[in-house]
């Protein structure tokens, strides 16, 4: 077996052919370290790595690298997220060097939600480079030992490179090609947008497999359990690029008051079961938004415990 690209736990799990299970943890809107540690503790032992979001939905939070380090102190492996909205290529590359130097080994490369969504809509955005170019930059830094300028790096950062993929955004027919482009740019693994429309996702994965993309990159299917009917409606109507079928909303409505959350978890568990069997899927990325305390239960029900120790 050739040597690891980064040697992260996530990379080892995937390389070993184990079904990966990653979680997510949003940094606090403040410096409440204890709250972050508490959220992290729920995830410990349940997941192979934890995505640490970077000012998600353009709301200011503790920086993703700092929160990643706190998670690391808690014994979790961070998947450091970086968006192109808030940094130019100088800051991007220096942060990459910084996180690697402090022991971070996974990085998810994103464009980032537009600042109009967040709590500082008056801000100027950067978008010096885009997510595709970010993926390529991290790969060039790692494999060629070079900055974007072409200048050589003294001790290159070795990161396991992640990318996002939204199979439900439009134009639908191009999404699989965009995934191929991200893989060609250097993505080692991909985490998808939350999946609710399973029919459409099956179609998407069939195309992925037909094109052999799953052999070039690990694909983790994104799941966010629905907590309520209201959340399902919000996701369906307010979140761009999200595909929530009416049948799911009806299913959650059908179980009666106070039981939608349990039904949401049940649906998520069914999804994990199907993804375990689905060709081309290497794992699941569970984004239990502010529901970290339910992750032990979900991972138990989904039968993904114990996590491999490699």
């Amino acid at each position, binding site marked *: 077996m050739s040597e690891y690209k980064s040697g992260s736990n996530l990379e080892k799990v995937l390389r070993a052919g184990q079904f990966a299970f990653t979680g997510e943890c949003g940094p606090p809107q403040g410096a409440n370290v204890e709250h972050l540690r508490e959220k992290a503790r729920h995830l410990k032992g349940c997941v192979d790595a934890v995505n640490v979001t970077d000012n998600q939905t353009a709301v200011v939070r503790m920086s993703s690298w700092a929160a990643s380090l706190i998670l690391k102190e808690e014994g979790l492996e961070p998947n450091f997220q970086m968006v192109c909205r808030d940094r130019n290529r100088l800051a991007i590359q220096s942060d990459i060097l910084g996180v690697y130097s402090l022991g971070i080994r996974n990085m998810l490369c994103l464009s980032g939600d537009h600042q109009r969504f967040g709590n500082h809509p008056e801000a100027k955005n950067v978008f010096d480079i885009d997510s595709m170019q970010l993926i390529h930059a991290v790969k060039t830094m790692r494999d060629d030992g070079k900055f974007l300028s072409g200048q050589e790096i003294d001790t290159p950062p070795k990161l396991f490179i992640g990318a996002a993929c939204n199979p439900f955004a439009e134009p639908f027919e191009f999404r699989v090609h965009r995934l191929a482009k991200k893989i060609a740019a250097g993505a080692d693994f991909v985490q998808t947008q939350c999946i609710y429309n399973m029919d459409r996702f099956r179609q998407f994965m069939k195309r992925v497999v037909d094109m052999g993309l799953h052999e070039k990159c690990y694909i983790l299917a994104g799941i966010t359990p629905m907590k309520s009917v209201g959340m399902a409606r919000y996701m369906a109507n307010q979140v761009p*690029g999200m595909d929530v079928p009416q049948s799911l909303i009806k299913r959650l409505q059908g179980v009666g008051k106070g039981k939608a959350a349990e039904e949401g978890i049940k649906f998520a568990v069914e999804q994990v079961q199907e993804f375990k069997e689905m060709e081309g899927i290497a794992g699941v990325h569970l984004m239990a938004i502010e529901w970290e305390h339910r992750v032990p239960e979900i991972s138990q029900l989904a039968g993904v415990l114990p996590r491999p120790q490699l």
Partner: protein
Amino acid sequence: MIVAEPKPVREIVEMVKDFDRILVLGCKGCVTVCNVGGSKEAGILASALRIAKRRSGASVKVGEHTLERQCDPEYIEEVKDMIHDYDAVVSIACGVGPQFLAERYPAARIFPGVNTQFMGGAIEHGIWSERCAGCGTCVIHFFGGLCPIARCSKSLLNGPCGGSAHGKCEISKDVDCVWDMIVRKLMEQDRLDDLLQFKPPKNWTTARDGGPRKLVREELVR
């Protein structure tokens, strides 16, 4: 053209509240075409200022004049005898005009009467849309003649992002997703390979990021 919108009259009245002799200066260039700063609009603004000033009891002189262009020194010269009759000049040209005036007539008090918006064109009567960000290195031929730098909210060169839905941008249902248009057009033209080509980071030195720009064309310099 350069597209601008009028500043609210209220705001202009407030800007010039300490002056009683005001010249409204229009421009026959872009701002005439987009109905914001030509001779007609100069007349309307001058009347509005007269009314507002009289209402406040001031005796006031409001003149109006429209230049061929305000982005050319030779036309700016035209007001040299007139400008000293006024305490304040409200230019309703794009942002270039008031600056050329301020440079040529350092003693004059110059105020902007419009908010300059973007380089674009009219898509319907009364509706203008941005088309160019003036990045200094045009690449639209790679994108089916559509500019992702000016028209994608994130200026993505390898789009579309995951926020594109029903042909609209994630920031607003009123904003078309240019990447949706680019992808559909290139796929119709059977140019998937072009779409799959990795576009490297842009060199922004020719854009505003490289500092204030100046263009010298030796063959034209006398």
